[in-house]
């Protein structure tokens, strides 16, 4: 790093205007807008009505995308915004609240994407004095953006280009001091791999290719340092709630995350034929035992850790290649293990570690490679070394993706674009929705989840639509999708919209007996608003629809709410003797019901009444005009 190319202070640039009225508790009432190309910054005031309507995190991010993203801009165009969004709860003692959202137009889907990450960057980023940081334009050369309260600078960083995100983060903090917090991209982001991640402190804003958006701006890292404080409206109430929540977070509802982590899903999902295997050609995996946390945790787990402000401690670190501690999660293991037919735990841990090093979303990496393995085995692409079950081939493929070399040039585009390029029927088994590869939940045996995957604005996603919860509740037959499944999918989607906007970690969700009421209580204590469960339920619906309206504005069509052909034409046999079939007509029926319940017509467009009820007329009009 050399001296800054540009240093400027944003004090006074709109600052006084937006501070005319004090911001609600937990907010600064403004976003910092940085133009990397022009080396300039402005402050965008955020009205209280906007903050109350969208809260923060993914919700406020959706609104900011409507505001800041030029219509029809290409995701990797310099004009496309990349937005870091904080939330009112960040900085409070509420457990798991140190989280931030990163929002952009996805280079993988061409639609809205938002990904959450956590820890100290969330706190320091917000305490720069902004509820969001919007990046526009592109640096002339590889650079680092530094935000030190109201002072902003862009610093050349050619020496960091090519480094893994963690290494860049380490070097920057060594140079600048431990008060700085860093979110960075790895080599995959620099090379515009469409599913590259943004990383901070070993955690990743993983899905949708946000790292590629940052890479397209030649921004290696964003550094933030806290310079301001933010007060809650009722600090005593917040403290009491934090104490209560912390105690509850030690209970049975979070035991799984604490004791084994999300890897505990793997063998259980295998037992219920919900574990995607060999590119979704099966739902059980013979080699699952060798990858289950129950089997390998005692032998390989070396440490446990947690994010800042978290009392759960879900991070389970395993002994990786070269003694490197590697964080293992269910999604890593499913995507790089069973989905690619790999049962060698060493290979899966090494693959996961390599994805972290390169800055790759493990789900899309595994999903795209699994598709390519099937193509290779069917003779659709000439890559003789790429076969299901071969851990060495898996590692080679990941390396080539990170370098965009060999087959990696094709696979760096993701399974949707790659399958369009290969053609010859390979689109039918490219397991994505809207371009985003499916997570580790088999839609034929989890049919509420099938709906959630099909209709969610982000694409095939398990964090914005946790409908698997409904499938695994026992309240309905998970193999016979129908009205109860629709209700379950909507319920979990609404809950996610609020948790992702407050932001609270979803691993905490089980501790809330009456979620909307309890969340309304937390938000009221922090902001001073008198929010109730009903208002929050409406807010959830507004946020879900605001995302859909953004996609509509960007050219979304009804056929994007669908699943790949494989899931609708191939059945699965269960141990019980039953056959799991998801017909096109059943999926169509569930989507129709979902649209009705969401106040959409059968083409997926919102009615005037719905827009009015949710106070979305302006966004709706814009979406109809531009979409």
């Amino acid at each position: 790093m050399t001296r800054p190319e540009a240093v400027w202070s944003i004090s006074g640039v709109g600052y006084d205007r937006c501070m005319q009225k004090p911001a609600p508790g937990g907010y600064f009432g403004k976003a910092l807008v940085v133009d990397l190309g022009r080396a300039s910054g402005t402050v965008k005031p955020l009205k209280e009505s906007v903050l109350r309507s969208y809260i923060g995190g993914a919700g406020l991010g959706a609104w900011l995308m409507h505001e800041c993203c030029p219509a029809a801009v290409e995701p990797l165009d310099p004009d496309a915004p990349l937005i870091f969004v904080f939330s009112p709860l960040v900085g409070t003692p509420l457990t798991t609240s140190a989280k931030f959202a990163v929002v952009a137009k996805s280079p993988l889907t061409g639609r809205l994407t938002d990904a959450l990450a956590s820890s100290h960057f969330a706190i320091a980023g917000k305490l720069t004095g902004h509820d969001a940081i919007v990046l526009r334009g592109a640096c002339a050369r590889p650079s680092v953006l530094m935000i030190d309260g109201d002072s902003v600078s862009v610093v050349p960083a050619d020496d960091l280009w090519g480094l893994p995100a963690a290494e860049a983060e380490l070097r920057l903090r060594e140079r600048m001091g431990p008060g700085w917090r860093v979110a960075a991209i790895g080599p995959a982001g620099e090379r515009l791999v469409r599913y590259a991640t943004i990383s901070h402190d070993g955690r990743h804003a993983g899905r949708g290719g946000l790292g590629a958006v940052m890479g397209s701006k030649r921004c290696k890292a964003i550094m933030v340092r806290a310079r301001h404080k933010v007060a809650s409206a009722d600090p005593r109430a917040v403290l009491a709630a934090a104490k209560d929540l912390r105690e509850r977070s030690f209970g049975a509802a979070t035991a799984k995350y604490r004791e084994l982590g999300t890897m505990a899903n793997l063998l259980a999902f295998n037992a219920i034929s919900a574990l995607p295997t060999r590119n979704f050609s099966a739902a059980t995996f013979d080699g699952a035992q060798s990858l289950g946390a129950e089997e390998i945790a005692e032998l390989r787990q070396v440490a446990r850790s947690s994010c800042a402000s978290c009392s759960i401690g879900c991070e389970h670190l395993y002994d990786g290649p070269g003694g490197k501690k590697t964080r293992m999660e269910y999604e890593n293991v499913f995507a790089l293990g069973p989905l690619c037919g790999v049962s060698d735990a060493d290979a899966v841990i090494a693959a996961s570690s390599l994805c972290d090093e390169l800055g790759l979303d493990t789900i899309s990496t595994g999903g795209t490679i699994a598709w390519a393995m099937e193509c290779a085995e069917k003779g659709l692409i000439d890559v003789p070394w790429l076969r299901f079950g071969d851990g060495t081939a898996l590692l080679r493929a990941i390396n080539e993706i990170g370098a965009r070399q060999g087959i990696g040039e094709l696979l760096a585009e993701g399974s949707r674009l790659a399958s369009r390029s290969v053609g010859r029927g390979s689109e039918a088994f490219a397991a994505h929705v809207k371009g985003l590869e499916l997570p580790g939940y088999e839609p034929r045996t989890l049919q509420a989840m099938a709906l959630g995957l099909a209709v969610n604005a982000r694409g095939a996603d398990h964090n914005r639509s946790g409908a698997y919860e409904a499938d695994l509740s026992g309240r309905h037959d998970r193999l016979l999708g129908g009205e109860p499944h629709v209700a379950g999918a909507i319920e979990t989607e609404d809950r996610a919209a609020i948790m992702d906007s407050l932001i609270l970690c979803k691993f905490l969700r089980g501790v809330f007996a009456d979620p909307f009421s309890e969340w309304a209580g937390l938000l009221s204590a922090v902001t001073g608003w008198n929010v109730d469960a009903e208002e929050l339920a409406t807010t959830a619906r507004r946020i879900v629809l605001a995302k859909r309206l953004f996609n509509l504005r960007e050219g979304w069509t009804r056929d994007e709410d669908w699943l790949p052909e494989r899931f609708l034409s191939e059945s699965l046999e269960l141990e019980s003797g039953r056959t799991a079939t998801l017909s096109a007509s059943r999926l169509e029926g569930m989507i129709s019901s979902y649209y009705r319940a969401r106040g959409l017509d059968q083409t997926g467009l919102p009615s005037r009444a719905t827009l009015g009820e949710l106070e979305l007329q302006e966004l709706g009009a814009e979406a109809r005009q531009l979409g």
Partner: protein
Amino acid sequence: MGSPKATLEWHGSTLLRRVTGIVGRSVDGPVVVVCAPGQDLPALDPAIEVVTDAREGRGPLQGLAAGLDAIGDRAAIAYVSSTDVPLLHPSFVRCVVGATNDDVDVVLPEIGGYRQPLAAAYRVELLGAVEELIAADRLRPAFLFERCRVLQLNDEAMLRDAAVARLDPSLGSVRNLNEPADYERAHALPPPEVVVERFGTLAPRSRPRRETVRAWTLGGVAAAIGLTLDEHIVAALNGDKISRDEQLPLAAGDTVAFMVADAGG
């Protein structure tokens, strides 16, 4: 028996709860209970439908008509069971239903030399014929069998089914309870043997994750291994149905997988 068979206690459950549960596990369509007007029934799974027999004391054909009518066009074949068969096994039901084909209207087991009209599969289209017989006061099932195409399955034929041979070798599925002593004897039988698996944080450190337990119900299995089916735990039966229902009936050969309810990652 001293009390209605439907309400007889069965190891923490009732006879009717058990039989409807076993049938429900074995078929894809709805399960309908036909009861007499004003008859008290024990608690059932909410998915079970209850209809009232329009005319009491008209025998099994009247009940059959009410049941077939309730099913309507939701299924082509109906398995008909009496209430008092606690040893009914899903493999038996599947074998009988699976023996139906386009040339058969009724699949009628004949076990130990006795025809079993209340352990048989009927084409739902037979409703008209059944109603005609009732109207003509011809109330015995045998009259129906004279009028339709019947496939009889004797012991040997039933045991040719591999699952029945393995899981219900004595064909206890048709052992009904006519006297209190029958009930006492059946009640004293050892529970069926089921395989139990535990996953995630429920997996024991000092015991095998997979073990064999004897229990009549899901609640019985949970109790046997020291688990409580609260909001944080669910069970999957044979890798299929997810449940927390303590009265969910179990049968020999079942596998029960306990897992934490908080899936996700």
